[in-house]
């Protein structure tokens, strides 16, 4: 009986493997060609029409400015990288926030510090495999989803 079980184990395992495998599509490009400039509403939400993204940003205001209402009326820069991460920043921000999408949520994966005093006029560009952060003519940084890849001041 034991021997029979051992003999059957390998074919059963082989048959089971395809059934359990997860369908996966690779080489997906999530990147937006250009950033979205969105204005924070009175209810602390941002919305991008073209890509149908809507999010509440009060926790972000709390995190960056220690004031959940600090972003009302502010213009934020939002860009999705080719990997699918959302990069978010704005004027007076000292960080670029990197979020991963989840079910009805965006989860912070990294807050990358890019300035000591706060950005003045930031812009995000898609530069695969990086996301480029500009601040006027003074700053140019290439970002990955978790760090600064290259900085020029």
């Amino acid at each position, binding site marked *: 009986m034991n021997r029979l079980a051992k003999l059957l184990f390998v074919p059963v395992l082989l048959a089971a493997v395809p059934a359990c495998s997860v369908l996966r599509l690779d080489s997906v490009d999530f990147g937006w*060609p*250009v*950033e979205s*400039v969105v204005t924070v509403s009175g209810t602390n939400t941002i919305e991008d*029409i*073209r890509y149908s993204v809507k999010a509440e940003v009060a926790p972000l205001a709390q995190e960056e400015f220690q004031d959940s209402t600090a972003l009302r009326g502010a213009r934020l*820069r939002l860009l999705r990288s080719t990997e699918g991460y959302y990069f978010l920043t704005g004027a007076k921000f000292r960080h670029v926030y990197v979020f991963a999408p989840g079910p009805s949520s965006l989860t912070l994966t990294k807050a990358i510090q890019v300035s000591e005093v706060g950005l003045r006029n930031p*812009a*995000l*560009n*898609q530069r695969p495999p990086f996301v480029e952060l*500009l601040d006027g*003519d*003074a700053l*140019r940084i290439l970002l990955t989803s978790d760090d600064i890849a290259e900085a*020029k001041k």
Partner: protein
Amino acid sequence: MNRTLLTALLGAALCAPATAQHSDFALKSDFEDQYRQISARLDSASTTEEIDSLKEEIERLASDYAPHEEFLDRALYPLTFSESITKLRSLQVLTYDRVYLIRTQGVKLSELEARITSLTTRLDSLTAQRDQLFGELQESRKSLSALREAVRRLTANLTAKDRLIFAIVDSIFLPYGKDLSQVADVQKEAIGQRLERSNVITRVYEIAADNVKFLDATQLQGRDYGNLIEQYEAFNGRWAGLKQKMTDVAAAGASIPAESAEKGTSKAAVVRRGVKELRDAPETAAAQAAHVDSALVEWHAKLIAGFWGGLQKEFSQAGISVAPFSDGPSFSASIRQEVASLAASKQDPQPFVDALWKQRIDRDWREGLSKDAMLGRAEYAALDKLVSELSRDTIDTTFVAYIAGILVIIGVIWFFVFRTKKRPDQPVPAA
């Protein structure tokens, strides 16, 4: 000298990366801003010289942004860079043609706008007059002549309103020629805004609704219907044409980028903020069109019911019972049946032929019946001939009786003459 040069080169080298960097968003926004400015200037251009200078600006825009074509193709979705430039070039050509057409026709856009404003004002005064006339119609029910006068004036008022609203429509579309497929989307958007500003759809609906109210409020005579049917048919045809144009215009409104639509004043444009809302334009146009369509259906139904009901009443008032009818074919069948029945029986056809057909139907209802939408000219002529033949039989009998009467009179005269002539020949009796 060398030190200065070295410092300058070092400075340039340090600054080069900084000055070369640009925001993609700013690039896209700059392109869109310039695109919109040129579109707007083309839209308001009134001289060919002005449009010629804009052609140069379009070519400059194309060459300035050509190095960023690949990026703009993705950023300007759903249009590509080359499609945007092509659209602008075709708008320039069409605007040139339009302005040239207006110049050669001796009509200026400002004159057309003034004409539309004037027509709209006249239309508003007619609307005020209409309210007064409806009031008069209610008051003059007791006097037949006053009622007829109120009906006449109200009909004239509705016809004038009908004519004016489509004169406004014609003025709006005049500069763009007959073929709207040749008109650029931005211009169609401008037409849409003019239609909205002049409140055209509401006014068209109002005219249809006024006619329904008019048909409800008054008892019409047979002779009134010819004009009313004609008016309905003409209105219906013109509305079908306008509806098609509106659909084209609304479809163009939906394909215009949201940013450029926002500058418009139309409700459809104001609510446009993205792809989802862009669909509202044709839907709104369709809903408005459906509203007018339903008023027209009601107008038609009341007109038809009033016409055939009134005609049926003529028969019952004349004491002639015919099979009920509610449209051209059933009326035709009913008359043919009546004629056949009268021809077969020995009943006197006179009341039907003379008192009803000739005095009432042919005099008051012929114009309405001859309309293609009712009975048609050919079928009316066929029925008239049929009824007349029935009448000819009557005339023949009378004629025979008349001849017989004359013969009797001649006979009597002859008899007396003969007797008069014979008398002298009579022998005198012997005394």
